[in-house]
């Protein structure tokens, strides 16, 4: 079924960035990853982490709306840890892979709704998250949620 497939067209640019076109929108992504804080681009790894956070934050808010649970705002911090970063830097003698071995997500929810209502919506969100459900098959995925007023 075509509606189950999603695609992006990614085209390289001379400046080391890539243009990503999806449907009628586009955005740019830089190097696979960087250890340089001054690097002027968004890396593929950062995009992945940001996408997972957005999946959960927006997923939660959409689901809360459906269930009529009032949520003022939500914010996620997402951290990924590489198995061996030195492999990416071609350090001779290093073993392991450049895979992300662990991702941790801390989600903050601002709401006056009851904790039970928020937890129920959160459970539904996790159950239906495309990215969280995909990533948990490949990496150790730690996800926690904190309610703050």
């Amino acid at each position, binding site marked *: 079924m075509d509606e189950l497939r999603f695609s992006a067209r990614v085209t390289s640019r001379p400046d080391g960035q890539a243009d990503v076109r999806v449907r009628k929108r586009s955005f740019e992504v830089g190097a696979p990853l960087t250890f340089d804080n001054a690097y002027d681009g968004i890396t593929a790894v950062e995009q992945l982490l940001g996408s997972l956070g957005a999946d959960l934050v927006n997923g939660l808010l959409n689901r809360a709306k459906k269930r009529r649970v009032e949520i*003022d*705002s939500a*914010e996620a*911090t997402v951290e990924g840890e590489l198995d061996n970063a030195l492999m990416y830097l071609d350090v001779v003698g290093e073993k392991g892979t450049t895979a992300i071995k662990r991702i941790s997500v801390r989600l*903050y929810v*601002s709401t*006056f709704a009851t904790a039970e209502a928020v937890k129920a919506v959160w459970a539904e969100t996790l159950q239906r998250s495309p990215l969280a459900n995909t990533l948990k098959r490949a990496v150790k995925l730690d996800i926690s949620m904190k309610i*703050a*007023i």
Partner: protein
Amino acid sequence: MRKLPLFPVTMVGSWPRSNELLRAQKLKRAGQLSAAEFEKLADEAVLEVLRLQEKAGVDIVTDGEQRRDNFYSFVSEKLGGVKLMTLAEMLDIIEDKEAFEKILKTLDVPAYSLSNPTCVGKIERKTPLALNELQFLKKHTTKPVKIPLPGPYLLTRAMFVKEVTKKVYKSKEELAVDVVRILRDEIRELIEAGADFIQFDEPVLTEVAFSRGKTRTFMCASLAASGDPTKELEFAVSLINQVLEGLPPVFTGLHICRGNWSKDESTLLEGTYAPLKPWLERLNVKQLVLEYATERAGDAMAFGGKSLGLGVCNPRTDVIERPEEIVEMVEKALKLYAPEQIYLNPDCGFGTFSNSPVATSGIAALKMQAIARAAKELRKRNKSMNRSK
């Protein structure tokens, strides 16, 4: 100040806000509730906090900072040239994003939940900072009133966010001139209106002294990249003394603590007052309001020429301190201070940040009751000691 019993019991400042008041704060910020409607709700909240303090036996009351979102950022509503910015907004403009991310992670809070009063224009007092709080309390209590105010160092350091402030003030020292002037005007009015106790909150002094080489934890913009602690402490002393110089006499205090944003003590700063002592003794305040219930603060020590606001209960724990424990703490302090030099208070507020209070109203009330019971016992002991002399 009016005559007080020995070992007067007082608050540091804040009391946990009700959900109704927190919701109203949010609606007001979003422009969905008028200031007048908010004040009406806040009046009721203050009266309830006042009732709880009076019932507990508090001798010097506060309004529980019910009208404020926290102990310092509320000034953004009162001052022209100051914008309340959430950390989420500040992350877009500041250079040292990594340091801010570390702070947020340590505090375990979202960026939208913390706000900083950021100087974006020439600062001026649109309305008094706390005069309305004092006037309202005076109408409803006969007890002496304490007014906590953010100190000049805290305000200057928090408000000076170089990425936006430098367009108006070239340096933090230049901004401080206006901060000092504004606080002096405020204090003059508070004295005229009958404030009994004015307390400056300068918790960032512990950041300066204790967090070198560690992740900074206090939400105070420029401190994330501040320099030499000695220079910072000199700057702080000079500002506080400038604020008080030549003003009519009033009882003044300075409160410092090691953080009050989490019940997880391991995330808070640690260290005795020893490194701060030379600077604290030079402050022209009458009292140091210090935390001592937490072990992180070390043992009580004497400060030349100052009375002590002795922190005898930890606002972050759910266990209520026993009056006997409090009496024991005071007995130790009595080796360094005369009885009339000791006031009893919690280590800090119970709801420093309105959206993340460290205690419930119920716990706060029980802790204040325990302090008041201990004060009673201490007065009794002191009386019988005097008789036997």
